[in-house]
């Protein structure tokens, strides 16, 4: 039931989960991931179909090196956008930040739908393929997930990651301790955008077609659900949530129309049944995963 295509989608889901997790681990509830995903995907789709220097053949294949370049450029554009937008929106807190990032997602969606060169409602199609079959995408997707997860894992012991944790627990206290909270929040936001942008660039090639619907409010919802249901205390949570929740609607396909209702029920009941998410620090300790450093919560420090 799980074929290579679904596996790639699951890995992409895990990457988007990490993209939401990064700002959240600095206490910033940003729902902007789909906007950066859409920007990265659109740039990749445009470059691969229009820029002849990339060497796309008439038969629709793309050299692997060009594919890699497009992935990087997608991430860079999204990151650049995040530097600008982040400086504006990260002054906002809590629900104001969440809603202003939803606003960003909607603005980007409408822009992609209406700009003269992005193909309107149909979007961009026949995007050149670097691989002859879906399984080929497993390698770059796994590599990207591995890189991002390694970064998140390293962050838990690096000063930057510690500062992010401190801001999450108490932003004011963190600032009093001399942490440049604005800078730390911006870095987390930009890394998150780069991950989402590159993921979008990969997804555009994998899906072979790209349009404005790829980065909508729905995606904000599902990607946030990856993190909340998976668990937002360690990077393993969003990865588990992204893998499982991407697979779920596909695995439920046999039940037909009811599958999205079931998906909704999972999101509705998940936080009630698993208040801290599926992967909690407690669970990891019970499993004896000593390589996951224990996060000290504010109450323990006191």
């Amino acid at each position, binding site marked *: 039931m799980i074929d290579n295509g679904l596996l790639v989608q699951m890995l992409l889901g895990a990457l988007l989960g990490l993209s939401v997790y990064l700002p959240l681990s600095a206490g910033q*509830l940003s729902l902007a991931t789909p906007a950066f995903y859409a920007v990265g995907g659109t740039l990749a789709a445009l470059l691969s179909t229009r820029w002849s220097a990339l060497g796309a053949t008439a038969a629709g294949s793309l050299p692997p090196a060009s594919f890699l370049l497009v992935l990087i450029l997608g991430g860079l554009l999204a990151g650049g956008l995040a530097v600008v937008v982040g400086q*504006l*929106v990260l*002054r*906002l807190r809590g*629900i*104001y930040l*969440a*809603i*202003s990032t*939803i*606003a*960003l997602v*909607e*603005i980007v969606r*409408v*822009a992609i*739908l*209406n700009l003269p060169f992005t193909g309107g409602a149909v979007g961009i199609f026949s995007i050149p393929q670097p691989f002859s079959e879906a399984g080929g995408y497993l390698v770059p997707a796994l590599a990207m997930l591995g890189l991002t997860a390694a970064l998140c894992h390293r962050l838990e012991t690096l000063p930057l990651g510690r500062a992010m944790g401190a801001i999450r627990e108490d932003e*004011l206290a963190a600032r009093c301790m001399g942490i440049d909270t604005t800078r730390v929040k911006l870095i987390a936001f930009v890394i998150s955008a780069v991950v989402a942008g590159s993921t979008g660039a990969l997804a555009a090639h994998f899906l072979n077609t790209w349009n404005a619907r790829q980065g909508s*409010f729905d995606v904000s*919802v599902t990607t*946030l*659900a990856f993190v*909340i*249901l998976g668990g937002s205390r360690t990077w393993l949570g969003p990865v588990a949530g992204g893998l499982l929740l991407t697979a779920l609607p596909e695995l439920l396909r046999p039940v037909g*129309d*009811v599958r*999205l*209702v079931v*998906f*909704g*029920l*999972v*999101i*509705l*009941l*998940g*936080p*009630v049944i698993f*208040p801290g998410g599926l992967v909690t620090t407690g669970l990891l300790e019970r499993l004896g995963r000593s390589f996951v450093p224990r996060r000290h919560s504010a109450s323990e420090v006191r």
Partner: protein
Amino acid sequence: MIELVLQSLLNGAASGGVYALVALGYTLIFSVLGVINFAQGALFSIGGYFTYLLLGGKIGANGAFPGLALPAGLPFWLALLLAAVASGLVGLLVERLAFAPLRRSGSEPLQALITSLGAGVVLVNLLQILMGAEGYSFPEGALLMAGLPDALVIAGARIRTVQLLLLVVSVVAVVMLTIWLERSRAGKALRAVAEDPTTALYLGIDSGAMVRLAFFLSGAMAGLGGGLIGLSVSLPGPYFGIGYGLKGLAVLVLGGLGSVPGAIAGGLLMGLAEALVPPDASGWRDAMAFTILFAVLLVRPSGLLGSGPIEKV
């Protein structure tokens, strides 16, 4: 020319009225619980479909129930009112399923965001199973049943009655709600819970009942909006409420979280701004609300009429 301007201003004010309705729905719940109910857009859809069915519209569901409908359509006003009540009841159900369990276990507000989104996904997809993905137009003559002509001529300009109706009904609903909140015993109790739940408890106010009241009223507001928009435009499919839910959210923040006059002013401002987008750029209209929101948040992070939370040190 004057006709065109008048018509587009009225269109703007009419959709602004509906945005204000949705935003007030959010405001009611936010002021009491400090959380956003993301199922509001789904309740908007549900209100539209209830109104359609009560008017005697047929259940679609890809022809699973051929010809199934109410034996006779209700008068428009009654249908709209009952649909609002029904949406309010669904709102109560959302509270029971998505908010009450979390409140009892005392989890973070972030969780309620997810559970209410989940409730919205369930509702919209149930609607899709029951009614199909196709769009519906309201039965012909729904307006005539309400005893209203199709168009009015004011100052030489021909104006669709539906738009006027939209504006009047939403303004009346908003004003009635505001007066009720200010004057009535239950309204005062609701504001007391919003102000300080502990003190309200000592005053003998049943905060649980007030929370349910807020959810009922909020659902009814969304349902009313859905019925009105369904009448004026049509029901393009079960997801149509989501877009209005998002714009309501923009209005909510634009006006200032928890501020009733802010929600009204924000709604009208947003509707008028959208109406000013020239027709040949109409594709960009949906971005208007969010661009304004973005701009306002950067200048005034607590919204136009919000006071902004006092930060605890």
